């Protein structure tokens, strides 16, 4: 995103290091994934076709199929199709842009439930940016649409760990995961309104929303907390750059990040001072309640107004002690719990069970659950990522073990094997691009693999019998 002086271009850019966050841009994660395709169409005459579904309408399915090494796109009439099966690693592929067509429930979608308010509950759990990611959320939303959901509840319970076995405390901070949330926002902001004929009510039920996950619920005006919920873990905005570079540039970086986070809060209708309190360690905020409504002021509390300290400046005697931190009582930056979130009107209420949530939403009598596939969708994605990581490591190991030697035909065969291995790696990387960091797996990235394939082609061209 940034260019150096050496390119004769000074930079005035965000310069956001997306690589620091989890994964890269989500674009076209599935549309080029035909090498991994496992979707199967089962026809009424017994025939089966494997490939990758590119587009599915009420009447037809367009699929990318490979026959004898030739890739082509085929359209099939749904009247001829008995069933559509999607492989374990294969989630429904997003359609390539086409002419707009009225969306109708897919042929294999369950019939709408008669009567009651249709409620779809999707559990967003696991590692933010990996398990909680745009593709499974988008798939869940599409499933909610197919099931005629009128209320979509996202139960947010993101992992917050120092390592695989150790929970991270509240004062660990990962503000820049905001830019990972930024790739999920469009689903909530744009895709849901675009998809549904009548906007469903989108609700977040927060169990744990730390790091980048804390920004997700903010774009929704309907948030509930579990009694043990935590929302925060982004208190390093003004300290994350340390002493690198010049102060004015650090301030620029802080400014654009803060504005981006505030943009999410504005969308949900929340006071942007809450964002400052959560992210800026040096800022002091207090609040009071006026007619039951919170008023947040950037100052120490005024006792005459009954104000209560939200966050102090974190300096000297005000610095959170280890005793406070161990007890989640620090106030250098704001971490919301259920009580405070409700007082600040971030949370509409505290609920501990799904039944309580439905009651709070006024749906305890009329709500009809239509989320039979939700957990499966989320689990399939997580399993898919795990399998993809395992498979990528294996493929890379295999590639490194391929010896190009012997007779010309053997060398040719070996190079062919190298290419196929690399191409399979590219297929997986494309498909799970948003959740994979190749460097962490010890494998080359997509573009580096392209170069390797190019080199193999040239070596083959140079080889002689």
């Amino acid at each position, binding site marked *: *995103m*940034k*260019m150096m*002086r050496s*390119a*004769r*271009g*000074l*930079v*005035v*850019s*965000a*310069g*956001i290091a997306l690589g620091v966050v989890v994964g890269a841009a989500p*674009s076209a994660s599935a549309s080029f994934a035909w090498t991994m395709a496992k979707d199967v169409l089962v026809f009424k005459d017994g025939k089966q076709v494997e490939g990758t579904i590119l587009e599915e309408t009420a009447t037809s399915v367009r699929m990318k199929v490979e026959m004898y090494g030739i890739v082509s796109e085929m359209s099939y009439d749904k009247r001829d199709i008995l069933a559509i099966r999607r492989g374990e690693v294969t989630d429904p592929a997003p359609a390539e*842009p086409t*002419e*707009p*067509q*009225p*969306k109708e429930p897919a042929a294999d979608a369950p019939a709408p439930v008669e009567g009651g308010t249709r409620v779809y509950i999707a559990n967003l759990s696991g590692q933010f940016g990996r398990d909680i990611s745009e593709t499974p959320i988008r798939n869940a939303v599409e499933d909610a649409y197919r099931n005629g959901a009128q209320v979509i509840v996202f139960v947010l319970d993101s992992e917050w760990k120092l390592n695989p076995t150790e929970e991270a405390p509240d004062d660990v901070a990962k503000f820049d995961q905001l830019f990972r949330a*930024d*790739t999920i926002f469009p689903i909530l*902001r*744009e895709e849901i309104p*675009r998809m549904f004929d009548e906007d469903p009510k989108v609700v977040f039920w927060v169990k744990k929303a730390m790091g980048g996950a804390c920004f997700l619920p903010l*774009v929704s*005006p309907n948030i509930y907390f579990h009694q043990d919920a935590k929302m925060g873990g982004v208190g390093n905005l003004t300290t994350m750059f340390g002493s*690198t*570079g*010049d*102060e*004015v*540039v*650090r*301030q*620029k970086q*802080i*400014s*654009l990040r*803060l*504005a*981006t986070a505030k*943009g*999410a809060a*504005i*969308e949900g*209708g929340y*006071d*942007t*001072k809450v964002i400052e309190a959560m992210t800026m360690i040096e800022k002091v905020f207090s609040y009071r309640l006026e007619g039951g409504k919170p008023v*947040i002021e950037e100052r120490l509390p005024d006792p005459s107004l009954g104000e209560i300290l939200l966050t102090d400046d974190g300096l000297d005697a005000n610095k959170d002690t280890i005793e406070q931190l161990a007890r989640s009582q620090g106030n250098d930056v704001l971490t919301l719990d259920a009580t405070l979130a409700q007082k600040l009107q971030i949370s509409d209420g505290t609920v501990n069970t799904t039944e309580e949530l439905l009651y709070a939403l006024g749906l305890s009598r009329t709500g009809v659950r239509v989320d039979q596939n939700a957990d499966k969708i989320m689990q399939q994605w997580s399993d898919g990522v795990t399998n993809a990581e395992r498979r990528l490591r294996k493929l890379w190991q295999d590639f490194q073990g391929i010896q190009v030697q012997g007779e010309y035909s053997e060398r040719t065969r070996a190079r062919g094997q190298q290419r196929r291995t690399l191409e399979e790696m590219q297929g997986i990387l494309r498909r799970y691009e948003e959740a994979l960091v190749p460097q962490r797996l010890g494998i080359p990235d997509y*573009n580096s693999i*392209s*170069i390797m394939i*190019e*080199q193999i082609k*040239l070596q083959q*061209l*140079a080889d002689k019998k």
Partner: protein
Amino acid sequence: MKLMRRMRAWMSALAVLVAGVCMTPAAGAIDKIHLKDGRVVEGTVKEELDGYVWFVTKVGGVETEVLYKPEQISKIERDAGSPSPVDPQGPQSGDQPIMASDSGVPARTPRFAGGTKAAVLTLGERQGGKDMVGIFVTADSIRRCIPLLEEELGTDGTGILVLRVNSGGGALLEIQKLSDVIEYELKPKFRVVAWIDWAISAAAMTSHAVEEVYFTRRGNYGACTGWFGALQAVTGRDLEDVLFMMEKISARGKHDPIIMRAMQIMEPLSCSIDENGEVKWFKSLDGDYIVNEPNRILTFNSETAAKYKFSKGTADTIEELAQAMRVPEINWVGEWIDGVDYPVCKAEKEMRRFRDQTKSDQDRTNEYFVRYQQSIAMAQGTPREERGKFVNKAREALDLIVRMVRNNPNFHLFVFNMATMDEFNAFVEEQRQLLRDLMK
């Protein structure tokens, strides 16, 4: 499909436009809007049009104007003495014309003119990583779109060109070129408005040439400090040059230059707003409202931009934008395509093609070079009679490189570090000669 429903709703709204608008109630009135999502918002109804309500609220002491759509509103409770609740779905009574002067927006387009033509042209596409100014937002790519815009909007100045900005910034050297295209090639032909989704740094500096700025609710605009390397600031003469450039560009956009200055360097900014709504800016903390603290860099969000009247309004959809622009009869040119919330006009289609090709080339640049260099190396190490296949490979790779630069001339600078196209063309000619020589 939702888009079609929106269009139908919008067309229905147009059909009853003759009803006009209700005027702003007295200042200080406390109205309540009950929203269908359960929220109740307190504030003041500033204006209404066919069920759309411009509502002024205070959030954390910041006054913000929010537009609510009819379908969002359950009911409106008005201050004592005001008319009874309005059915948000129905036409409004009243025959006053829309007042264009109160927010400084251009006068309303005459009714029954067949609809004012409008087109959306996107500058940057953050989600796809296609947003860098100088690479994906370029003067050249906009210039290429102008004939298409002329075809669709006409050139008499009535057509509205909405520049939808979604970029995290980029190269400083492109800003002047972009500003010149906007000032000299777009503004004389179209009513140019900027619709800000994410205009950071060079993207904000580009947008600054536009007078009429709208934000999405999530939008932000600013953080324009020039830097390089490990967060090192542009300083000295280079900085002065940029500050002066932005003073001139501020004048083009009719923005007080100290606003942009507070976005570039750590200077305080405050303002006062008089009873007529006029904003006076201060390069100090002397104004009634602190807009930027002394040791910070300014970035507006939709609330602050509206409060301090930097933006003319806040809109998330083209329907809301048309309302905010006070253009009730609008004809958005282009085709609806899946996944896009506005019609894609021919110019926009070309812009998308340009970005896609640029992205593909950017991702594959190293591949092109490796293919070229290794093909040359292999050709050089091969007897003359067997070189053909490698030279052909090299020629293919060179053609890809040429095509890449033809699509995006700025690559000659950013990829090859060559100041001009002539320099790049000379390089290409040298390479072609090298390939010919290899075959001799």
